């Protein structure tokens, strides 16, 4: 029995470059893109916090 845990959602916008610089996060030594969010989607979901 195989159960799907996660599958990526289709992205409406790709390659826009609005994402944040990977190194501007907590670690400054071992940052990964895996725990970054898409800035466009984040702003759409929370325009006030993201300063739209």
């Amino acid at each position, binding site marked *: 029995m195989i159960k799907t*845990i996660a599958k990526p959602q289709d992205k409406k916008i790709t390659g826009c470059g609005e994402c944040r610089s990977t*190194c501007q*996060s907590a670690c400054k030594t071992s940052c990964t893109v895996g725990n970054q969010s898409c800035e466009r989607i984040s702003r759409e979901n929370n325009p006030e916090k993201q300063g739209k």
Partner: protein
Amino acid sequence: MRSRYFLLLKFRYKMIHTFNYKDKYYIYDSGSGSLHECDKLTCEYVKAKYEKSCQMPVISKEKAEEIEKDLNGLKEQGLLFKEEVNVSPIKSSNIKALCLHICHDCNLRCRYCFADEGAYHSEREFMSEQTAKKAIDFLIANSGNRNVLEVDFFGGEPLMCLQTIKNVVAYARGKAEKSGKKFLFTTTTNALLLDDDAIDFFNREMENVVLSLDGRKEVHDAIRKTKNGKGSFDAVIGNIKKFVKSRGDKSYYVRGTFTAKNTDFSNDVIFLAESGFDSISMEPVVTDIDDLAIKESHLPEICNEYENLCEKYLEKYENGKGFNFFHFNIDLDGGVCLQKKVSACGAGNEYFSVVPNGDIYPCHQFAGDKDFLMGNVYEGKLNDGIRNNFASASLFTREDCGDCFAKFICSGGCAANNYHFEGDINKPYKITCEMMKKRIECGMHVLARKKELK
């Protein structure tokens, strides 16, 4: 030199990765980015037949057929054995972010500091307000159509020149209003000078604050000492607690460093969580100091420790005392687009560091290395050769990443670590790779268990 086309072709894999966390078994499909959970026999069957990395288990014909049926179903949905897509990295000449080394001096003398205890192997100096403002001008002028710009106040210890930071933030806000830009500021601090004034300012102006605290008092004090050689734990813990209490829902990270001296670092993470901090990062040290450096011989116990941390983290989560651990936040459902995933960290192309005299380097970890000096904010130009070298560095130029399951999550690692330990920004540093892969497996397990508990 091999052509990039060749490298792109090389990446056209259909890769799966099977792994287990205690009695939980998983299949991760690199091409689709999907994660599946299965039973032990299915995992061993897939591992033997498709990864060819173990003996085929004893299995009945009926069970094998049942597994193949499941696998084919997922394959038809594009969730397994999906060919990895060869997209181009994001190419832009716009600058997104600057790390401003607002001072190359520090009020602590931490042995493991990559920045030579704040001095960066040079004179201890502060960035002038004029230079910092020039850096802001440089960022705006080179940001093209990008609206959101990021500035990280870094050191040394930035709070040694809080007034300069205040003036620069006010200047940037004013410039932003006129140019239609928005600034997001971060400060990385050791919290020794984090008084009420600094707390108030940070809460008003800093989108994120990174506070250095290594965990248990004895662990922290063994490394993070004042100029007089006294441990700094007692001097900072109250300040950090006060800050976090006042922070509301704004972003912060209490960030620790672990070394070869505390490979039981899960105890430090849990100590931080139990101290009331709910946003925590714990990073492996970057140093060549023999008794502190992480070596290959430490990897088994460190990987085991990530499992211990995973277990403790989930126990807290299940008991309603969950916290945010930076490296377990892997978002497989959402996250960034594939173009970003192959574009590496952006250092030297869209992100730079500026040292006190205005010199520009690819990132904070290259600061002071004259081979990587890219220009100066007063000149306003960047060395095209160095920038092109970093701009063309992507997942596809890191050949060693080709057969790694983690590549679309890690994006090829830290260019500075690669250079300092392997001599090439495109050659992944094996020790960090192993830790990264383990953290990613733990992050996937966390994701699965959280979904199960919902």
